[in-house]
């Protein structure tokens, strides 16, 4: 068996230690007790208790420690005492350490507790956790701020709606219809949170809506129903998804109310005109169509009409409306058709208000009739021919399902929102336009054209 060097020297040292120790016991009586006592007292060859204890506790300067280490390496007795002392101290320290570890730390002061929180091992984990919490709070605040922005916009629009409602409740009947449509329009904008659309709504359309609404006298019951609808939906301004859907449902309900009111207005107007004198010339022919409800759609930005004829016709309509107002006032002052506040006076006033636009329209229709044969235009990739004062899509035929939509109404805005091309074409052509779109014919009607058609029906 081969032993390496360390093992060999280890064995040799063990053997040497055994032999030396046995020799010391055999050939040396180990010293007398008296010598031992003297040395303990510091007067002999052994270290005294103070020196032994100082060595055991490591309380000696380096030179003194080396000196005592040399003595201990040669003196078995002192070495035995020191070894016993150190092992006894180690056992006592271990026992005390275990006892302290088992002791609850309730006696530590609040300062020590705070100091323990800022100890490096605690900070190592606490700082990243606090950092993550702060980042989380910041993100939460940013998200909440973004969510609140539509709410603020809705609240602003709600204020406008409330003001409109206040105006409606105090305005006369002729103004209520205009306010009603305006309020409904602003309500829609508020729901869709698109302020730009309000600004970009064509002034002509708004005026057209106002002008057409002056011809109509909605019944008070319809106005009240609309007000109720607005009141029900006005507080609803939260931008959440569920509230958006509820808003859309409210818009649908409102649209139905508006359509119902328009239908009633038309019926009322038809009844009134039937009772009136038959001095009104027949209206220009136009495509026959019934008012069909069109679902309200979100509005989109529309370009103002660029075509000169359209603007001029609108201006003529505006001028006509202004002239109507003057004539109404004049008629009322002259007592035409009875007392100013009598139903006949109001009826005649409405008739007179309608007359100039009809005349204007009829004049336009006569001019258009002369151009029917020759005037065609190509707009939006389609060809339109002038027929009876209206621009008719060459693709149109009687088999097409026709939807009549009046300019400036919510149906028109919804249709244009859905099909912007229709809006563009109608704006470019102006007046009454029949567009064939996706196998359906849309008759874009202005207010004068609609009244003219009603007159023609009555005459027939």
């Amino acid at each position, binding site marked *: 068996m081969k032993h390496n060097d*360390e093992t060999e020297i280890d064995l040799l*040292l063990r053997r040497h230690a055994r*032999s030396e120790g*046995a020799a010391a016991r055999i050939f040396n009586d*180990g010293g007398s007790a008296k010598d031992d006592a003297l040395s303990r007292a510091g007067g002999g060859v052994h270290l005294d208790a103070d020196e032994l204890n*100082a060595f055991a506790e490591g309380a000696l300067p380096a030179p003194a420690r080396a000196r005592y280490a040399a003595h201990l390496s040669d003196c078995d007795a002192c070495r035995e005492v020191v070894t016993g002392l150190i092992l006894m101290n180690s056992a006592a320290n271990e026992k005390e350490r275990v006892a302290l570890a088992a002791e609850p730390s309730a006696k530590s002061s609040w300062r020590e507790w705070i100091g323990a929180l800022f100890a490096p091992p605690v900070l190592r984990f606490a700082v990243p956790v606090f950092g993550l919490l702060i980042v989380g709070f910041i993100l939460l605040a940013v998200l909440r701020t973004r969510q609140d922005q539509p709410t603020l916009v809705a609240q602003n629009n709600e204020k406008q709606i409330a003001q409109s409602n206040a105006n409606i409740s105090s305005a006369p009947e002729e103004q209520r219809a205009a306010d009603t449509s305006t309020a409904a329009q602003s309500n829609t904008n508020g729901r869709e949170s698109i302020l730009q659309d309000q600004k970009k709504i064509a002034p002509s359309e708004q005026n057209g809506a106002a002008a057409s609404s002056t011809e109509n006298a909605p019944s008070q019951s319809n106005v009240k129903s609309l007000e109720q609808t607005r009141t029900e939906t006005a507080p609803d301004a939260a931008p959440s998804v569920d509230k958006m859907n509820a808003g859309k449902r409210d818009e649908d309900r409102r649209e139905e109310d508006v359509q119902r009111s328009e239908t009633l207005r038309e019926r009322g107007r038809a009844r009134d005109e039937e009772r009136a004198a038959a001095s009104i010339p027949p209206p220009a022919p136009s495509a026959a169509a019934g008012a069909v409800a069109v679902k309200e759609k979100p509005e989109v930005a529309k370009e103002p009409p660029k075509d000169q004829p359209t603007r001029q016709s609108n201006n003529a309509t505006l001028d006509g409306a202004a002239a109507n107002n003057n004539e109404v006032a004049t008629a009322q002052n002259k007592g035409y058709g009875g007392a100013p506040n009598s139903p006949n006076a109001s009826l005649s006033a409405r008739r007179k208000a309608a007359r100039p636009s009809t005349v204007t329209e009829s004049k336009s229709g006569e001019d258009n009739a002369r151009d029917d044969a020759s005037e065609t235009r190509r707009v939006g990739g389609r060809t339109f021919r002038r027929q009876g004062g209206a621009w008719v899509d060459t693709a149109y035929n009687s088999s097409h399902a026709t939807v009549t939509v009046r300019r400036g109404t919510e149906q028109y805005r919804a249709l244009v929102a859905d099909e912007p091309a229709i809006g563009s074409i109608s704006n470019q052509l102006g007046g009454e336009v029949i567009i064939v779109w996706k196998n359906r014919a849309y008759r874009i009607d202005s207010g004068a054209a609609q009244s003219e058609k009603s007159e023609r029906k009555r005459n027939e």
Partner: protein
Amino acid sequence: MSLTTTQIERLIDEGTKRLIARATEARTLDVDALAPRVRSALNKYLLADDANANADAIREFINTLHADDLCLVIACERGDQSAWSDLVERFNSTVRSAARHAAGSEDAAEDLAQSIWAELHGLRVREDGRPAGKLSYYSGRGSLGGWLRAVVSQLAVDQHRKQSRLVQTEEDADFDRLARDSHQGEESLSASHAPSDPEQSLLEQRAAKDVEAALAKAIGELEAEDRLLVKLYYFDGLRLREAGAVLGVHEATASRRLARVQSDIRKRVETILMNEHGWTRDETARSLTEAATHLMSELEPMLTETRAGMKD
């Protein structure tokens, strides 16, 4: 530049004043009562090894003395009964614990503790009429509790050594026999070998002697702490953890130091054998290997019997 006696005395006085200021219970002691003990400790532990110690070393030495323990001991020496009461009350458990650790039985421990208190108080009377006890040997360098444990251990060792001279254990007898045979050097080394011839046997015995002598010399030439480590580990049979505790180092440090010491001893033994006894390197290596092999073959049966005895 060494300090003069006057300077040292001034440093001692200043240090003693600071020591009294540090003590939580000075027991109405003044500089005159404490200065002699401080001077004695300074001479014993610092100036005896470094006569040219500077003022900072002296101040540092005095500042690290145990002020409260020193004031208590000096007050006891002056006959302060309240100080004696405090001493017994604080350290009676320490003395009893050390006595139980050193003694073999509870009765022996009680006797040992009583002996300690008697020696501390002093059975002899000095010239001035005050009892001469062992308290006068406390310098304040270490703690008073550790000093009391040392006093108990010393007394216990003295009593054990006195009894051990009279009674020898069986295990010690076996090792003694082996050592006697090894010291004579003839029979133990050749126990596993058939004697070839007298000349060869004599050569082997002589080689074993030379190895033993070289080992002793190599151990004697070690540094003090290295030699202490060898004594603690090989002669006293301590484990490396215990030996490290005596030296004030960790067990791993003690292990590395022991490995280094073993290497140093082997190199020194080879050098001694080659230089002083004229061996060649090969002869030295072969001799050491043979000696270790012989030792294993001799010790294995004994170790086996020892282990069996421990199991029983």
